[in-house]
């Protein structure tokens, strides 16, 4: 009787647990990779996550490298267009980058390194799974194209800033990490993958207007491909691109092959909140202030970009201040100056720009100044960062036309840009009496007869026009690098020793560049030191 009780007790408990299901515990708030790519919706969500790092810019990060990193640190500040801003002690690493005295511990390049590699990993994970996914082929092609566009976008930034970096076309494996099986890929092979990804994306993505705004489309892919050609032509052109290729591609673009684009009529409107995603916009990073702080990286969809660059008394931190040198390139009746570098004493949204310890150049970056209603020092703003505008297609087309002997076409494109500039009003609230208005300038139109008709003068003019048109839009650094002017400009204007710049550049001599065509020296920035110390890749020259 007693033993029977015992047996029952034990049998009950054992049979309760003997089913092996007890040890099958599946995640509930997360999804396994296998399950995830069974549906289009899942695959789409995995693609969405590749976009997410685009608007990261703050100090936190999921993989341990943090710091304030923005493309403009290289693209604008490390050039003759602008200065670091704020006070000297604040983010001194940026000054070191500009002067080529930085080292691999400089936090101001960390996130530029990290967020792009996170995009690449996420893209590669999607691409691996799409090959076996079973849903609709057409949808698969589109998702693959989106992922490849974003992978190319990330690599393009990496190769421009750091030169030869590790190249992956599939997710890094655990074995690779254990074996430290990594190396720096040559620049040209990174460009090969970029070109191939962008060509695929151009051919397989729909034109704009089909998918949601902000998603990659064939226009964005074609435009980025054009930029890739443009930069290769002036830096590492081992892949043998030609100006004709660029001319053809931009001609196709202008003819509407990748969607319908046009210059916006008012340059001042381009950078206003109202000008987001307008007819000229080819690709821009979408941002919305949803009230989530920038320390919550995943759900955060705002932009710290504006906060970092806005004036101190207008809710910002006062970095990236345009300088007199940039201002001097504008003709006095060019409204783009007021829309790019707004001077102390002038007004934005009706408020005066004031001098202060955080401004040493006399100018603020007008394209980053927000309406007072949107000032927000913690969460970032809803301001979209414009990455590629149709104007760039026109000016790339002009440059390609020039190099292929079509000088008339080159002059024509520059004229289009200047004509549009002439129509511009002042930026919003330039007139303190009308804080919300776009006040007409009353300036005479820009004189297009000053455009040289050919020769080096024309090329120089096109490049200067790029500087005027894209002032503070993070293109200047690579424009002066790819045209071979970086060393002269920076050593003459900032007395940085030429040998110091050379020491930090990839040239035909100081790097294993056999069989590689290095057109102009490529100054590069330090790879985060821990990456180099631990994982068997090379630091960039001179760091």
């Amino acid at each position, binding site marked *: 009787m*007693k033993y029977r*009780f015992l047996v029952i*007790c034990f049998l009950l*408990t054992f049979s309760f647990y003997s089913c092996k299901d*007890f*040890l*099958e*515990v599946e995640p509930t*708030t*997360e*999804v*396994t*990779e296998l399950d*995830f790519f069974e549906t289009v919706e*899942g695959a789409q*969500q995995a*693609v*969405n*996550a590749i976009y*997410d790092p685009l608007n990261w810019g703050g100090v936190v990060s999921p*993989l341990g490298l943090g710091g304030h990193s923005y493309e403009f640190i290289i693209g604008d500040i490390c050039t003759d267009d602008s200065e670091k801003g704020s*006070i*000297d*002690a*604040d983010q001194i690493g940026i000054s070191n980058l500009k002067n080529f005295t*930085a*080292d691999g*511990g*400089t*936090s101001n390049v*960390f996130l530029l390194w990290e967020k792009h590699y*996170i995009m*690449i990993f*996420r893209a590669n994970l999607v691409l691996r799974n799409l090959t076996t996914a079973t849903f609709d082929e057409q949808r698969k092609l589109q998702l693959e194209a989106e992922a490849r566009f974003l992978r190319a976008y990330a690599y393009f930034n990496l190769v421009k800033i750091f030169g030869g*970096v590790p190249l992956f076309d599939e*997710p*890094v494996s*655990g074995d690779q*990490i254990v*074996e*430290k099986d990594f190396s720096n890929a040559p620049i040209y092979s990174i460009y090969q993958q970029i070109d191939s990804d962008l060509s695929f994306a151009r051919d397989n993505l729909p034109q704009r207007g089909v998918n949601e*705004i*902000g998603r990659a489309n064939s226009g964005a892919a074609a435009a980025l491909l054009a930029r890739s050609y443009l930069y290769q032509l002036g830096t590492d052109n081992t892949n043998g691109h030609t100006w004709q290729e660029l001319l053809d591609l931009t001609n196709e673009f202008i003819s509407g092959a990748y969607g319908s684009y046009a210059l916006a009529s008012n340059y001042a409107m381009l950078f206003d909140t109202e000008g987001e*995603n307008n007819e000229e916009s080819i690709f821009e990073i*979408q*941002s*919305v202030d949803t*009230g989530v702080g920038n320390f919550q990286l*995943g*759900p955060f*969809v705002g932009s710290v970009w504006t906060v970092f660059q806005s004036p101190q008394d207008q809710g910002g931190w006062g970095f990236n201040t345009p300088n007199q040198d940039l201002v001097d390139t504008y003709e006095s009746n060019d409204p783009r100056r007021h829309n790019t570098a707004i001077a102390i004493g002038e007004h934005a949204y009706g408020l005066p720009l004031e001098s202060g*310890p955080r401004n040493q150049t006399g100018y603020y970056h007008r394209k980053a100044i927000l309406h007072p209603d949107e000032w927000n*020092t913690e969460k970032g703003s809803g301001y979209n960062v414009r990455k590629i505008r149709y104007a760039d297609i026109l000016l790339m087309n002009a440059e390609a036309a020039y190099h292929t002997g079509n000088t008339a076409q080159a002059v024509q494109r520059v004229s289009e840009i200047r004509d549009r500039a002439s129509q511009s009003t002042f930026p919003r609230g330039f007139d303190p009496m009308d804080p919300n208005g776009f006040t007409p300038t009353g300036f005479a139109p820009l004189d297009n007869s000053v455009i040289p008709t050919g020769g080096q003068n024309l090329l120089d003019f096109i490049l200067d026009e790029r500087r005027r048109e894209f002032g503070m839009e993070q293109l200047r650094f690579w424009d002066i690098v790819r045209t071979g002017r970086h060393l002269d400009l920076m050593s003459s204007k900032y007395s940085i020793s030429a040998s110091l710049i050379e020491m930090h550049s990839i040239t035909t001599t100081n790097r294993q560049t056999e069989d590689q065509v290095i057109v102009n020296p490529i100054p590069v920035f330090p790879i985060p*030191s*821990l*990456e180099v*110390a*631990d*994982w068997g*890749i090379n630091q960039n020259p001179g760091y």
Partner: protein
Amino acid sequence: MKNIIKTAFVFWVYLLAHQTDAQNTVSGVIKDTEGNPLVGATIQIEGTTSGTTSDIEGEFLLPINGKSTVLVINYIGFITQRIQANAGLVLEVLMEEDIEALEEVVVVGYGTVRKSDLTGSVGSIDTKEVKKLATVDINRAIQGKVAGVQVTTNSGAPGSGTAIRVRGIGSFGNSNPLYVVDGFLTGDISNISPNDIETMEVLKDASATAIYGSRGANGVIIISTKKGLKKGIEVDLNTYTGFQSAWNTIEMLDAPTYALAYLESRGGRISDIDPSLRYWVQNSGTGTDWQNEVLQDAPISMVDVSIRGGYKKLRYKVGGSFFSQDGIVINTYGKRYQGSVDLDYQVTDRVSIAAGVKYSVNQWTPYDNGLYSSVLGTALRKDPITTATDPVSGDWFRTNLTDLPNPARRAYEQQFRFQESVRIQPSISVSYEIIDGLTFNSNANWDDRVIDGYFLNPSNVTVERDEDGSIVRNPNESTNNIFYNRTQNELEVFQLTNTLNYTKKFGKHSINALVGLESFERTNINRSFAITPDTLYSVRYRDLDTFDPNLLDDFHEDVREIADREDLNPDRERAFNLLSYFARAVYSYDDRYLLTATVRRDGSSKFSPGERWGTFPSFSAGWNVDQEGFFPKNKVLSGVKLRAGWGQVGNSEPIAPYQFLSILAGGWAYPFDNESGTDGFAARFLPATTIRWETSETSNFAADLFLLDDRLTLTAEYYVKTTRDLLVNSNFVPSPVFAGANAPTTNAASMQNDGVELTLDFSQQVKDLSFSVGGNISFIDNEVTSLGAGERLEGAGYEPKIILPITRTEVGGEFASFYGLQTLGIFQTQEEIDAHGSQPRASPGDVKYLDADDDGAITSEDAVFLGSPIPDFTYGFYLNASYKSIDLSAAFTGTHGNEIANIFTYYNAGASATINNLTQERWDNRWTGPGSTNTDPRVTDQPTTNDIFSDRYIEDGSFMRLRNVQIGYTLPSKLVSKLKIKSARIYVSADNLLTITNYSGFDPEVGLAFNGDPFGNGVDLGNYPQARTIIIGTNIKF
């Protein structure tokens, strides 16, 4: 053994010297040591048959012949007493339990064994010692008490934790031991009052822990809490109150010296300094001692009450305590409310049911340990010229000489952030003795812990001065935004244990056998949300700039109300289940030969089906040599026991669930259509498809010697512990950032720890003076024996500016040792730089490094071994003494031969005063010209290589600390009995009164860095130091 126990007990016979009227009788009362009357004790006159028994009140009256006689008092289970009694006396006899007679037992897994049968390595902790420290953290209280158990306090902040290592680093993950509290397996004992602990044992070797299989890899600490009494009632009241203070501060530059240092950093020309900063360099004023600004003398107090008793078949215990402390950093605090109820009902002779519930609420202000933002960190870094507030506007102030938050503001904001942990832990168990010796036990435990974090970022205004001296708002440190974050972490555990235990003695053979089944389910749910400003503004406090801190509680209440209305969907849920079968057999022959064998089979849902099950056996044997006929028993050597054991245990604790699956989690949003975020799913780590159980194997050899009539005991143990397939959780596996995700969880390495542990205790009683002294010392050797396919693991790269990772783990070396450059002094001249060759960009005054690989350049390959955070030995020793009513105790603890990587010196002994303030020492020893010094480099804000991780960061971490000293006085019972008090003691106690160390940081007790990273052991990031605490307390029994 018997005598040891005897002397460990306090033993009184009170002769209450008043005559009774009756001639030639003695009377009295017989009680146990806890004061309960003993019914039916026999009182006999020695050498006669005449005697009596005690009545229901424990009282007796016995006529005697003559004036004086000797009474023999007997009670089953208690030690027999002989007492000289004079006629007319009233005696109070306290009977002491005869532990030997009741077979002194030691709690081991799922049962008890007679201490004499014990074969594994088990260290017992005197629970009186646990109560002595002014802390609710029981772990801190066992520091230095058991050989082979190293306890390191990670931080002195209220609410922060400890790292416990039983016999060294056993795992790469969490190496903390398993706690078994009244049969419940847990990793957190913060809901237990130190006063509630009845017994506490540490199981150290695998033969002892193998019964816990995969749970016992890092040692097991078994705690039994106090239960009800058989009858009567007893009330215990323990209280203390006191204050804590910082025992150490670091000498930083004062404002005028800092101004000089700033100028020198910038090259010495005032004109090179920003116009807006120049003013401060020239007008430093008296400035601020930031440490003084943020540190305080902080109160601490505790009240603990417990009521224990029994009524008929019911035994009960009800207890509760309240603990409160402020931190030594202003605006930090910790509070704990805790209570428990335990009931035990004897249904029949063979069936009993027990039920209990533990409830606790912990509140604390989470201390931000960030290098950039921590209060103490910024206090050591912020320029001393800045004042806490602007004297004119009253706003927070900064000079901008250093780009760091105002430490006073950071400290102020701490009060707007607190965490609260509410834990409820019910249990029920049934015990059924089926036949004599065969017992079935079923024990169910629930544990529900909800940890809420309430984080408010208040708005604030920090101002600076313009070039013309006018006050302007500083944008970096000012914000108009208020936002409120709430996080919630809920942990649910259900454990069901069924065992069947059989004990039988036949002849000289005795056996104890156990089989059991245990299931364990654990779910961890994270939830969070942020309250948008709009919602927050609807609370009544609109302007937090002028916030009255007294309204803080109300504010939290209001926000909590809002929070409770918000949807708290889980962000993340993590669950795992464990299923285990186990068995044990203990056999002893004639108390001489002892054998124990255990086996446990564990299945864990953390592993893929193919790797799911592990089987972990153990065997051990003991020999009570003194029981042999040939053993010459004598006064010098009274007993000898030899023990040996071998066993295996598994471990899956270090890793999170689902690691073998590739999983994607949501929360990575992007705002398509320029509207609100559209969710994206991404993988954060790579899948670990092949992970399997981590297994450790220990061989243990031990000898117990009993000397000087058992007054001196000596235990020596030697062990070898080999751990294979060490599991490293994804986020701690070093991986390149360019992988774009964390590396997979891996079975990364094999490691061996071997060591010797010695424990010595001596006690003596000389008339009214009794004392005991003793101590323990543990030597440990750690060696990494394999690292799989990799050559080495690098870790602790927290501060990229020092260029190199801090630790390396290499085959043949110690786990996570420090590797960095070797310095060769300071370059005095350009000629010296040229001659050295490998630092062409250096200037005189820069640090000279050893080019270890002689390749003409200083690179990461020149890093050499600089030391290890693992001590050569750790120790603890104590003295307890009592004379009449006065008692005194002191306990020391320490480590020797370990190094600390003081990463904080990157800041406060760094390159330049433009980023941080500097220590006086750094400034005094700086290079100022050829021959000036060879220890510290020049002070400059020019880029140099002087900050690369090198031996300049390495310091000797040895210390000896007077952990606790206490003096107590027990009030005369005559006095207190009038107040119906059984006993009363008052005491004064001090923790951390004295620390002997050469370490220059705040505190040489440096545990694991950030997030418990095992690769960051011994890395000091400017830790919150432990306080010196002085309290006065009372122990009262009613």
